[in-house]
C-alpha cells in the first residue's frame, strides 16, 4: 500500500519554522544540510515580505556534509549549538531534518544535555509522511515542555491563544477579532502561543486556565495542554456568523460566564453588517465549492441566506476567501469580496 507523502502542503521543517520564527529572543538551529536552511530562509523571507514583515528569523544550520552523513552529524550539531549560543538567545530550538533522522543522529539526546541556555528539540523530518501542519504541531507540542504546572500563576480573565497562522495575510486582523469577542465576555488574550511572544514566556504557557486553538487541526496540542496543565481547550477560532455566536456561547460556558448579553450584542452587530450590504440582496450568484475549505463554504452560505441571494448555475461566480472568515470582521471582509465580484460582473 503506498504511503501518502504528498508534499502539496509543504515541508515539515517550514511548518516548524512558522512557529519558532515568531518566538522573540529564540534562535532556531536546523540540524541538516545547509540547503534545508537556505530554502526555508528564502521561503520565509518571501512570505514575510508579502505580509509586510522584513525581518527573517534567526536560523543557524549545522551544515551537514558528506563527512557527517558517513560518520554522523552529532559533532556538527554541537558546533551549531555553540554558534547559536554566541547569539545570546533566551532559547535554542533545534529542529531535526530528514537527513539527520535518516542517518540516525540522536538529536533529542543532545538537546537534553544540560546547558546554560535552554534547548528544546523539535522533530522536523517529514520523510515518513509529515508535512507543514505536522511541523506546526510538533513545534507547539515541543515548546509545551518548557512549562510546568509549578510555573502556574493564575491571571484573571486571561486566555491562551494557540497556533496562530503566522504566515497568514490576516493573522493580526483575526487576532484582533478574537480579542474583541473575548472582551464582550470580560476576558482578554494572554500569551499568544506563539506569535511575537518572548522565549521566556514559554514558562507561562501553563498559566491560562482557558486556551483557544487557531483551528481544529491543532487538537493534539489542545489535548497536551489539558493533560499537562489541566487547561480547558476550545478547538478553533470562530468561523462565519454562526460560528461567532457559538464561540461566544462556548467560551462563556467554559469560563463560567453567562454569554447571553454578549451574544445579543453580537447578533445586533451582525444585523448592522447585513444592513450595510443590502445592495447584495437578491443577487443571483454561484459558488464553486470544489476546492474550497468547507468552513468557508458554510460561512458563505449563511450570509447568502441572510441576504436572500439565490444560487444558480448562471449566477455571478463568487470568490471565497482563502482561509475561512474569522468572526464578524472576517465575515465583513468576505462580504466586501462578494461585493467586488458582483461589481465586476
Amino acid at each position, binding site marked *: 500500500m503506498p504511503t501518502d507523502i504528498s508534499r502539496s502542503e509543504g515541508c515539515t521543517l517550514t511548518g516548524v519554522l512558522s512557529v519558532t520564527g515568531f518566538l522573540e529572543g529564540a534562535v532556531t538551529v536546523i540540524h541538516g544540510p545547509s540547503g534545508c536552511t537556505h530554502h526555508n530562509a528564502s521561503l520565509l523571507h518571501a512570505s514575510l515580505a508579502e505580509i509586510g514583515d522584513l525581518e527573517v528569523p534567526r536560523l543557524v544550520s549545522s551544515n551537514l556534509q*558528506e563527512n557527517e552523513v558517513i*560518520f*554522523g552529524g*552529532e559533532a556538527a550539531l554541537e558546533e551549531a549549538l555553540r554558534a547559536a549560543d554566541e547569539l545570546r538567545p533566551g532559547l535554542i530550538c533545534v529542529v531535526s531534518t530528514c537527513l539527520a533522522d*535518516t*542517518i540516525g543522529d540522536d538529536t533529542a539526546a543532545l538537546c537534553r544535555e544540560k546547558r546554560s541556555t535552554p534547548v528544546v528539540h523539535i522533530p522536523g523530518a517529514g520523510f515518513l509522511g509529515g508535512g507543514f501542519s505536522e511541523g506546526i504541531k510538533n513545534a507547539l507540542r515541543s515548546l509545551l515542555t518548557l512549562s510546568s504546572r509549578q510555573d502556574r500563576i493564575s491571571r484573571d480573565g486571561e486566555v491562551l491563544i494557540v497556533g496562530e497562522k503566522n504566515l497568514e495575510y490576516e493573522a493580526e486582523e483575526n487576532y484582533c477579532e478574537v480579542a474583541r469577542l473575548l472582551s464582550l465576555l470580560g476576558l482578554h488574550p494572554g500569551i499568544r502561543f506563539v506569535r511575537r511572544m518572548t522565549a521566556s514566556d514559554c514558562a507561562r504557557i501553563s498559566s491560562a486556565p482557558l486556551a483557544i486553538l487557531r483551528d481544529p487541526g491543532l487538537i493534539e496540542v489542545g489535548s497536551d495542554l489539558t493533560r499537562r496543565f489541566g487547561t480547558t481547550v476550545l478547538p478553533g477560532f470562530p468561523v462565519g456568523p454562526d460560528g461567532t455566536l457559538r464561540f461566544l456561547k462556548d467560551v462563556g460556558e467554559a469560563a463560567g460566564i453567562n454569554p447571553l448579553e454578549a451574544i445579543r450584542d453580537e447578533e445586533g452587530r451582525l444585523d448592522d453588517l447585513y444592513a450595510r450590504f443590502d445592495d447584495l440582496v437578491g443577487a443571483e450568484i454561484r459558488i464553486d465549492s470544489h476546492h474550497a475549505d468547507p468552513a468557508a463554504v458554510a460561512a458563505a452560505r449563511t450570509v447568502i441566506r441572510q441576504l436572500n441571494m439565490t444560487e444558480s448555475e448562471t449566477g455571478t461566480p463568487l470568490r471565497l476567501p482563502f482561509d475561512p472568515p474569522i468572526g464578524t470582521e472576517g465575515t465583513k471582509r468576505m462580504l466586501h469580496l462578494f461585493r467586488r465580484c458582483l461589481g465586476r460582473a
Partner: protein
Amino acid sequence: MRQIALYGKGGIGKSTTSANLSAAWAEEGRDVLQIGCDPKHDSTRMLMNGTVIPTVLDLLRDNGSAIPVADVIYTGYAGVRCVEAGGPDPGVGCAGRGIIATFQLLEKLGALRGDIIVYDVLGDVVCGGFAMPMRESYAEEVYLVTSGELMSLYAANNIAKAVSRLSANRRSRVRLGGVIGNGKNIDCEEELVAEFAEAIGSRLITFIPRSPTVQQAELNKKTVIEYAPASSQAEVYRLSAGAILGNTEYSIPTPLTIDELESLAYRYLKE
C-alpha cells in the same frame, strides 16, 4: 578487467575466501586489487601479514578528499593491491554512503584498474550504499558466499534479490556468477548449497571444505596460499580461483521465498 564481488553473511568467510582467491590470482602474475567494503576493515589483513591498513574513510575524515594514492592502496602478498573502505563507529552515520564515497575517491585517483578487482562486501546490510558495487556497475560478477546454515543461506538469498532487482535496469551489467560454498562441517552441506544455487537459477561454482589449515594460516597472519602453499586447502583455493576466472555463465537469479528457503534447509536437516 574482471570486476568480481563476493557477497555473503558476516562471519561466513568472505574475507578469507577473497584474500586466498586474490593470492592465487596474483601468484599467476595477475594484477589484483582487493577492496574490503566491511566497516570492520579486516578484509585484506591476511594479505598484509596481519597489518590492519588505514581505511579510506578514516583518511577522508582526517584529510578531506586530498589524499595521495599511496595512502589508500597498500601492496600485500604477491603484489595484491589492498584497500579498506572502513566505516563510521557502530550506530552512527551511514556506512553505505561511506562505500559510495570510497569508490568515488578510488575512481578519482585512477585506482580502479588491474586484471581483477575483488570487492569483499558485507551481505547482512542491504542498503543502497552496500549495493553500490552492483548498482553502479563497479562489480559485474557477483558470487554469493554461503555455508549450509540457514542464516547464511538467507543472506545469500537476499543478495540474490538485490541482483535480480538491480539487473532489471537496462543500464545494469551486474549478473550472478555463481555460489561459493564455504563449508561449516554440516552433513550433506555441499549438496544443500548446490541445490540452493540451482533453486535460485545459478550453480555452485566451487565448494571450499572446512579445514584446520585455514585457522593455522590465520594465526600466522597469512593466507593459506602463502602459509601452506603445498596444502590441499591451498589447492582448493587455486582451483576455485581457476573456476571463477574460467566462468562464462552468468544469470539473473530468481530468489526463493522464505518458506521455500526454510523447507529446503529443513529437508537437509531431517536427512
